[in-house]
């Protein structure tokens, strides 16, 4: 066997220097796709999104993309069976969206292209249900005796 000193020692280059450069294959394509989606949103109002988990990205590509897009003014936290974070990027109209499950593990990572992310909008069903609920509470607790309640369950 060779002496300990004979074993070559390899110094890992920093991630930024080697890995980031070598693996940054699809980032340019993602950026131009995002630009196309932004233009479409402006001209036709059509929303878009890029699913970042279905792309063959290297280990550091997500971080690089995140740094490239920067951060904007809005930071939204949704608590729906696990946390979701929707952060505006420095590019208006691009929302960096991460959905996590109840255990905090990531479910989906995408960049949404929209004026307001769709998941924030309240659905009609929920509006109706909310109105019904309020009327029920109002009639049960605050209505004057003799008055007919407006809502029913």
């Amino acid at each position, binding site marked *: 066997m060779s002496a300990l000193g004979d074993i070559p020692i390899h110094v890992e280059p920093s991630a930024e220097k*080697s890995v980031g450069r070598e693996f940054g294959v699809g980032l340019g394509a993602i950026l131009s796709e995002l630009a196309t989606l932004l233009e479409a949103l402006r001209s036709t109002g059509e929303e878009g999104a890029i*699913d970042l988990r*279905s792309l063959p990205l290297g280990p550091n590509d997500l971080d690089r993309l995140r740094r490239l897009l920067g951060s904007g003014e809005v930071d939204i936290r949704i608590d729906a*069976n696990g946390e979701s974070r929707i952060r505006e990027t420095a590019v208006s109209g691009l929302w960096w969206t991460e959905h996590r499950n109840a255990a905090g593990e990531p479910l989906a990572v*995408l960049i*949404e292209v929209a004026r307001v992310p*769709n998941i924030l909008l309240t659905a009609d069903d929920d509006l109706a249900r909310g109105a019904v609920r309020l009327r029920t509470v109002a009639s049960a607790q605050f209505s004057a005796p003799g008055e007919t309640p407006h809502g029913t369950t």
Partner: protein
Amino acid sequence: MARPDTELTIGELLDRNGVSRRSFIKYCTAMASLLALPPLAARAMAAQLRAARRPSVIYLSFQECTGCLESLTRSFAPTVENLIFNVISLDYDDTLMAAAGAQAEQARAQAMEANYGKYLLVVDGAVPTADGGVYHCAAGRSGLDILSECAKGAAAIVAVGTCASFGGLPFADPNPTGARAISSLVPGKPVVNVSGCPPIPEVIAGTLLQYVTTGRVPDLDEHLRPTVFYGNSIHDRCYRRPFYDRGEFAKTFDDEGARNGWCLYELGCKGPTTYNACATLKWNNAVSFPIQSGHPCLGCAEPDFWDRGSFYSPIPTARWGKAGEVSPAQAGTLAGVAALAGAAIGAGSVVLARKRINRNKRTKSHDSEKGNEE
């Protein structure tokens, strides 16, 4: 609210369980990502899924190691509890169910009767057919018998894992138990193969989910695998592909190339001939996959992957040896023997030709002498 669970739509069930619309949309976004659908398809999918009813699922295990089920239980999206409580009605699975023995078998019989022609049969493991199928018995019956009984009333069959899909390890040479793939044993039934050893958890769950969402068998490739997950080779979606294209290869597991994350083709990577979603969905909730961890792809999602020689011999190697690839010595010996044989034939044919020429000459000169005499 007295209706049984199976009659409720998934939407009704979710409302009853207090699952909010946003958490459902979130879940569908994850699903759409998993099924490689355009991200906005999540909205349409949410609508479809809310209107669908949970199908009854019967899960059978034959010659298998339970690795496939272990894999499924590690699915992050959908999680296995989400899947079995909200999306499907898992009525029989001898590993996961609380019931055992006669009660378990009774549960299976009941589910099959109540949902005849509509239930989904999920199978992992190959089925031994040699000697009347005695190599797999459960509840006093052979695997072959159980499979054909359960397959009869199934709307579709999902073969989970390489053993169920292609025979896998039990099917490998010399296959002493006569193991066979599920698709070869259930004629006329739609079969979906979800291969892999084990398959990616999200791929198993996603295939089931896709069936529930659309109510039909997905688009399949020539090996009956869903093209959403098995449409691309590992190689085509590999983040190390640029190294392959540039001709930068790791030659050993500890050389400069290996440390720099170069292509593992020369170390036997089967990525180019293996179709699976490892390079995009990855494993352990998208943490990594074998190639990212520095090991070549074994090709576990392809038929006969056990019988294709060493996992570490590259794809383009000659393979006429019994155990796989041919060593240079073997190739050289064969070439030498063939060359000697060729040389002998060549020399022999020359000797024969000369003899013939000499004989012809002799007869000719003999004839001409005769002619002179006359």
